[in-house]
Each structure stands twice: as structure tokens, then as C-alpha cells.
């Protein structure tokens, strides 16, 4: 346990070092930028709520990614599942306006979960039935989803006046409750926190979670144990897509209240490094998402005062993943050498 906490500490220190190094390499004033980011993400309570609000979609998609990857399914289609989820929710709002407000929010969120699950399940099913690599199919499905989004907000889901590429604003009662009028903090943050606990319990304390992990680490053993790896992989993909779809639904009902072509914001893509740096563990993913959420919240501040902007977060993520896998391989080899010597 202490070793794990030590590991997290090292990762945290490494992440900060990488951020500063990235600034230095790109010729951006190092300490001023770091100060701007820190101020923009943790400066005041309102700044911190912005960090939490950015963390929420990232964390939910990161949880989705890690469930699929634990089953050996490289789902890099979180983006598409996020979009299809959000659109399914908007479709409910558009085509079932008669629902009582108390049911509307639940119905929308349910639709987002189902939409995401089915979209990811399709990729899982194609993998199992037709041998289509998930890495390739989920990426292709991302691009298709973005075109569907563009078409939907200019077509069947467009607002009543038919002017802007946006859906109608959700009624107040159908939005996630907010805590204050001063900031954007919404109940979705709590949902994301609960999701960490639930995914952790499901993965590590249930028989299904054990099957998922066994299938991912050793499909041969899973088969020999009488499991059907294909079926479990499709299920893991559906759970993964459900979480990504929910992330889209929470962004929709908690933040934007309407859907435009910019719904996805690359969350599905950014979630992959967050899940990896969290060592494919829900708690780790939570911490990594919080770090990147803070970077995003802070980079808005950076954008306003320097030429650098949110794209710098991609660089930090990439370098962090590479540094992380390098260190893990190094410590693995060191352990092996010690074993050989002993």
C-alpha cells in the first residue's frame, strides 16, 4: 500500500516536472506560465470548481477506457461514444417533450448510457464476430459519430428557429442541479465521484470484474476456465461505452444544456492517457483526471495571457505516458535482475 502511495507521489512529481520541461522546450516563460495555470485551476474556490467541472467528463471517459482495456479491448472510441450518448439524450428531449420534468432528466441520462453502450458494443461485437481490430474500428466510428453529430444538429435535432447548429435549450427542470449561481459546479461531479467507487467495486470485488481482468490478462486461461472471452469482451465494451455516453450526457445536462458541433472537446481521446497514468485503476484514473482537469482549467488562463493554449496539455499527456511506461519497464527489469542475482 505504502509502495503504491509512493508510486503515485513519484508520478505526481514527474507530471509537474514534465509540465515545466514542456514550457521550457517550447520557449514559453516557465514560472509565469506555471503560476497562471496554478492560479486558474486552484486560485480561488470558483477556480477550483472549474477544475472539478473539467475533471468530470474526463474522469467518466477514463473509467470507461480502463474497463475496456482491462478486458484487453483497446477502446479508443470514447469520443464517438461520448457524442452518440449525448445525441441520444438530446433525441429524448426533442421527441418526448411530454415527459414530466421529474422523469425527463432520468430519461435523458438513461438514453445517453444506452446510446454509448450500443455504439461501443457494436465495435466489440464486430471484433468478436468478424475479427475487426477494436483500435481501428473505434477510431473509424469516432469520425462517423462526429459527422452524425454535425448532421443531427443541423437536421432533426436542430433548435426550433432553425438558425444555429444547436439543439433546443433544456428546460431548467431537466438539467442537473447546480449548487451556486457563482460557478458551474453541478451534481455531475458527484456522479463522477460515485462512479470511481462503483467501477472499483465492480472490477475488484465482483465475479464479473474478475472475469474481465482474467480475460484481459490471459484470454487462454479464461477460455480454459470455461469462460467465453468474446462475450465478456463485448460486455466490457458496453460498460465502457455506457460510461463514455454518460459523460456526454452529464456534459449536456450539467454544463451546456444544448448540444452543438463542439460537444466532444476531445474528452474521449484525452481519457486514454488519464487511464494509463492511473495504472488502469479507478482511483489512479481519478487522480490523473484531476491533474489534467486542472491543467485544462488553468490553460484557459494561459491562453488569455500567452500564446500557448490548451494544445499544450496534449504534449504533457504524451510525454507523461512515455515517461511512465519507460519507468515501469525500468523498474520491472531491475526487479528481474535482482531476482536473477538472488
Amino acid at each position: 500500500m505504502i509502495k503504491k502511495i509512493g508510486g503515485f507521489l513519484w508520478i505526481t512529481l514527474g507530471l509537474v516536472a514534465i509540465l515545466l520541461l514542456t514550457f521550457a522546450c517550447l520557449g514559453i516563460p516557465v514560472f509565469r506560465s506555471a503560476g497562471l495555470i496554478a492560479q486558474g485551476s486552484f486560485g480561488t474556490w470558483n477556480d477550483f470548481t472549474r477544475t472539478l467541472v473539467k475533471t468530470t467528463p474526463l474522469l467518466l471517459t477514463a473509467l470507461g477506457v480502463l474497463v475496456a482495456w482491462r478486458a484487453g479491448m483497446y477502446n479508443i472510441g470514447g469520443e464517438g461514444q461520448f457524442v452518440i450518448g449525448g445525441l441520444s439524450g438530446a433525441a429524448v428531449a426533442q421527441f418526448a417533450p411530454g415527459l414530466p420534468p421529474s422523469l425527463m432528466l432520468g430519461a435523458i441520462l438513461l438514453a445517453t448510457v444506452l446510446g454509448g453502450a450500443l455504439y461501443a458494443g457494436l465495435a466489440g461485437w464486430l471484433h468478436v464476430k468478424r475479427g475487426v481490430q477494436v483500435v481501428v474500428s473505434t477510431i473509424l466510428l469516432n469520425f462517423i459519430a462526429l459527422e452524425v453529430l454535425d448532421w443531427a444538429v443541423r437536421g432533426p435535432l436542430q433548435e426550433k428557429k432553425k438558425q444555429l447548429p444547436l439543439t433546443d435549450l433544456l428546460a431548467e427542470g431537466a438539467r442537473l442541479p447546480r449548487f451556486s449561481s457563482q460557478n458551474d459546479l453541478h451534481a455531475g461531479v458527484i456522479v463522477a465521484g460515485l462512479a470511481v467507487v462503483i467501477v472499483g467495486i465492480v472490477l475488484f470485488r465482483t465475479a464479473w470484474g474478475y472475469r474481465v481482468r482474467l480475460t484481459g490478462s490471459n484470454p487462454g486461461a479464461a477460455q480454459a476456465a470455461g469462460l467465453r472471452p468474446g462475450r465478456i469482451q463485448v460486455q466490457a465494451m458496453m460498460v465502457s461505452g455506457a460510461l463514455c455516453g454518460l459523460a456526454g450526457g452529464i456534459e449536456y445536462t450539467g454544463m451546456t444544456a444544448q448540444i452543438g458541433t463542439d460537444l466532444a472537446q476531445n474528452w474521449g481521446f484525452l481519457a486514454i492517457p488519464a487511464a494509463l497514468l492511473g495504472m488502469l485503476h479507478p482511483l489512479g484514473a481519478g487522480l490523473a483526471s484531476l491533474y489534467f482537469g486542472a491543467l485544462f482549467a488553468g490553460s484557459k488562463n494561459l491562453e488569455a495571457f500567452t500564446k500557448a493554449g490548451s494544445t499544450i496539455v496534449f504534449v504533457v499527456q504524451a510525454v507523461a505516458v512515455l515517461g511512465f511506461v519507460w519507468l515501469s519497464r525500468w523498474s520491472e527489469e531491475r526487479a528481474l535482475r535482482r531476482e536473477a542475482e538472488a
Partner: protein
Amino acid sequence: MDLFLILRYCAPVGLAALGEVIHEKAGSINIGLEGMMLSGAFFAAWVSLATGNPWWGLAAGTLSALALMVLQCFFTIRLAIDQVVVGTATNLLALGLTGTLFRANFSKTALSNYPTLPKIGPLDPLLIVAIVLVPVVWWLLQRTKWGLAARATGEYPEAVVAAGFGVRKIRWQAAGLAGLLAGLAGSYLTLGFSGSFTENMTAGRGFVAIAMVTFGRWKPQWVFAGALLVGWLEALQFTLQSRSVQLPYQLMNALPYLAALAVLVIVGRGRGAPAALGIPWRRP
């Protein structure tokens, strides 16, 4: 329909896919292909603008993709780390670097008005390269000693070791060729194809190229045929528009991706796939 138009649309995917055939035949999959193309596109445009010479741009774009490939291979080949993990990082790195440098140095909309490659008749030089490469890649893989060793590396690396070749060395060489072609493909996007750079302009072409390699059963001629199909679908939207056929433009945009997915579904499980594809090699 205009054959040259189809060729122009096919060339970026085609060049990248021909490189990926060599790469995958030797047993590695390049998930970072998209990022390498993007990097090639950006640096080609930037250096062409800075030097006023598109050939320097072509060299810079190609080298930048090659540099990313070297970085990626240090992790996937030297350290034997999972290729999907590293490839994903490569893509993020390219997206972040090009985005940051682009925003820091240019207006946020587009980089344009730089010299592009001259044309030889109706053809760009890189189109000719792409066409010539189809038999060349076939010959390299099927008729040379190196090709035999590379194919064996992708099928059964243990045999390659027994025959006295180095598995890692061959994979490095194959990756070098693939990186070179990814860079050419990316540079072509800004120097021959569009005349401007915008953020994330590769728009999934790298992934479509990977899909076409599977579709073409790792045979250069069929892979290129797949790229032609994609090029035809991309060019189709203009033909249909000029005939005023009313289809949602989003459907036309999505067609190449839908087609790539459809062919993968139809072709089905990887008959003809290199047996050791995607498995990191560690010295026994």
C-alpha cells in the same frame, strides 16, 4: 470521373498504407501513423513557407515523421512496450506539438500562401512516387533477401534469430521505411494536395490507411486498390455536387470511414495477417 482527382485523393492514404504494409509485414503495427502524417503536413508547410522552397519543406516534413518514428520505436522495439499505448502517445504528441507551434507562430485559422510542389504535366511528383512504389514495395517484400527476412520477422521471429538475423534490426529498418512514407504522405497533404495547413487536418487518414492494409491483405497492389477506393469516395462528393445530387454533405464526409469499416467487416478475420503482428519482441 477525373482519374487524376481520384489519384490526388488516394495518394496520402496510399503512400502511408504502402509504408504500413512493410511495417506490418515485419510484425509491428503503427498506431502513431496519424500523428506522423500530421507532423509531416505541418513541418512541410512551415519550412516551405520559411525557406520559399517546397523541396526543403518536403525534406523537413519527411524528417519530422521519421523522428517521431524513431522515438516510437525506441519504446516499442528497444523497450518492447505495447504498440497501442505508445502509438496513442505518438498521436497526442504530434497533435499537441503541431497545435502549439501553429498557434504560437500563425494566426489561428490557417497556414497558407507557401510554395507548393511543381507539377509534371497533370501529375504531382509524389503521385508518380506513389504509383511507382506499388511494384517496388512488392518486389522488396517478395523478391529480395531482406524482404524474406522481414516477412519471417512478422511470422515467426524465432526462425529469424536461428537464421542469424536480428529481429529488432529488421523491425527498425521496416519502421524507418514506414516513417519515411508516412512523412511523404503527410507532406503531400500540404504541399501537393491542399496548399494550406489547419489543425488536425489529417482527419483520420492515418487510421484509414491502417484499415486499408488489413483490407488489402498485406499485399501492396490490393492495399493501393483500397486507397484508390477511398480516394474515389472522397472525390465523389464533388462530382455529385456538380450534378446537384441532394445528399447530406456529412454523409459524403463519412463515406471513407464507413467504407473502411465496411470492408473490414466484409473481409473478416485476419487471414493473411502476419502471425506475430503487434507482439513486442524480447530477447529470449
